């Protein structure tokens, strides 16, 4: 097992280097940078701009810039955010946890609802419940997240003032302790509901399909023939095996806990990393955007390895490859 993990880690190094080069090139070859954006300011002169470029190291040749950026990366230094005038690592650390809270809540509800709906649809295949659930699932995963977000905001925050319009805490409030938690929770309801609804559809289809496949197996018939209770058959015999492929899905979803949701966070004005990074692109704060993109890339690669390893642990049949 250790050998397998080490091999997978080593294999991912070229991918990581390749991805870092591609991402770096996209950013480096972009014609505008933060300084060009500042030139729109009439007080900015060409000399001052050149001075700034030299300061940020934007005037050096490409390979040199890549190497210095990549060595920084290895030391955990992603450069400075030009918008916040702080190290990128610090900016990410400031905002990523707000996204993380949202992400955890979404993941919890997504898996809870998807498992209930998916399993129930599978046991009662072609029932009224199954038909309605299937239709709803299709509609939900065909909705653009931002449209659903806007509609919910309009209905629940603008037309009926049940929930706050946006942000994470009520402006001007200084709640502490329990009151603070309640306030944040109220602000979380709409973004969490939006993103859960968007993602729950696909997942419940996976649950349903896996369950259906398992239920048809011979050992389920054997379990029933032994006279076991239906509940035992479903939850102890069927569900366990149906869950196997979902381990991979779950692990691959882990990076999204940290990635934030750019558009939804922007709509609900949630101070998460997604919203901040989206603002960064509008002012061409490339170091911040670059650092964020790289972070997500690394997390994705790690999640892929973890998925392989966990699947091997859960299902010994696939371990030896």
């Amino acid at each position, binding site marked *: 097992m250790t050998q397998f993990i080490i091999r997978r880690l080593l294999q991912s190094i070229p991918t990581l280097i*390749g991805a870092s080069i591609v991402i770096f090139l996209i950013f480096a070859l972009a014609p505008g940078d933060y300084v060009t954006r500042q030139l729109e300011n009439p007080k900015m002169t060409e000399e001052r701009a050149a001075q700034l470029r030299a300061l940020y190291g934007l005037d050096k040749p490409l390979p040199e810039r890549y190497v210095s950026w990549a060595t920084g990366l290895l030391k955990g230094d992603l450069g400075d955010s030009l918008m916040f005038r702080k190290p990128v690592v610090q900016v990410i650390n400031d905002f990523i946890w707000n996204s993380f809270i949202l992400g955890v809540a979404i993941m919890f509800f997504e898996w809870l609802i998807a498992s209930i709906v998916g399993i129930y649809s599978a046991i009662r295949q072609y029932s009224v419940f199954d038909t309605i659930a299937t239709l709803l699932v*299709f509609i939900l995963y*065909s909705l653009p997240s931002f449209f659903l977000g806007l509609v919910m905001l309009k209905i629940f925050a603008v037309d009926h003032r049940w929930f706050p319009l946006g942000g994470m805490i009520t402006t001007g409030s200084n709640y502490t302790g329990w009151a603070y938690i309640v306030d944040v929770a109220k602000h979380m309801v709409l973004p969490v509901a939006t993103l859960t609804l968007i993602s729950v559809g696909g997942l419940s289809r996976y649950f349903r399909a896996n369950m*259906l496949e398992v239920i048809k197996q011979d050992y389920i018939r054997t379990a029933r023939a032994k006279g076991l209770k239906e509940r035992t058959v479903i939850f102890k015999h069927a569900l366990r095996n149906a869950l196997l492929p979902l381990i991979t899905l779950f692990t691959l979803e882990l990076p999204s806990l940290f990635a934030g949701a*750019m558009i939804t966070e922007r709509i609900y004005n949630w101070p998460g990393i997604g919203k901040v990074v989206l603002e960064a*692109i509008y002012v061409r704060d490339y170091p911040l955007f670059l650092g964020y993109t790289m972070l*997500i890339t690394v997390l994705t690669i790690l999640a892929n390895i973890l998925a392989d390893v966990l699947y091997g642990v859960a299902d010994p049949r696939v371990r030896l490859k």
Partner: protein
Amino acid sequence: MDRLNANQPLDYKKKNNPKKAPSIWRDAFHRFLKNKYAILGLVILTFMFLFSFVGPYFSPYLDAKIDVSKGNQPPSAEHWLGTDNLGRDVLLRLMLAGRISLTIGIAATLIIILIGGTLGSIAGYYGGWLDVIIMRLADIIYAMPGLPILIMLGAIMSDLKIPPSQRIYYVMFILGFVSWVGLARLIRSQILSLKEQEFMLATEVLGLRDSKKIIKHLFPNVLPTVIVSATLGVASSILAESALSFLGLGVIPPTPSWGYMLSAANNMIDFAKRPWLWIPPGVAIMFSVVAINFIGDALRDAFDPRQKI
């Protein structure tokens, strides 16, 4: 009837044999037509196409005609979906935007098929170092987060000052560039397993040319996968374009797309007080994407009834 006739597939030289075995295509077609969702999807999609491509000819209004005095009117008998801030008919704009959104969805998918299909087949068929290089590239692109890269490329388009009329083509290519990996992997794995099958050995024995092997024997077997994946690809391309344009980084005026029309909601007053500006494009996206997903899903069931996701 006689024993020779039972071996239909091997009898490849005899054309127009009246007792042709039912092809998987006809089978799939029948299964497809039996699917209620598929028919519903076809009906909705046909409507969306007619609405977007034929609808404008029935509109009494002209998109280019700006009359601010008639701006921001709520829906009425004359303007079914109201007017925008420049006094243009929202219904007409919705139709014209549909042309852009649907075209981008289809064109981007064609690009995905072209890149993903070609690279996937080469990697699968020839193997060796070509396979290693292509699949490494696929790994790299797969590891990079899609939306941030799309947004970044959109921002680059703005910095390059690409004229609005051409942005639509760039958007297609960007979407294609970001999302070919899935299809390439799928096709590669299918070809790898097809290569091991006996009919491919037979083509080897018959001494067929590479081009003939690929086009006549491999390609028809991969086609169902491509069709299903392309159909679902149109849906996700439409969604991706709408997100990009909503952020102002995709298609920009004067050619509206549904996503761009939705960006009206970024204005707090339009958002709260003039929902007729942004709800119709959202609904249009939803209906188109639902319809395409219905069709894609039914196609998958039709081609491969065992596979159920």
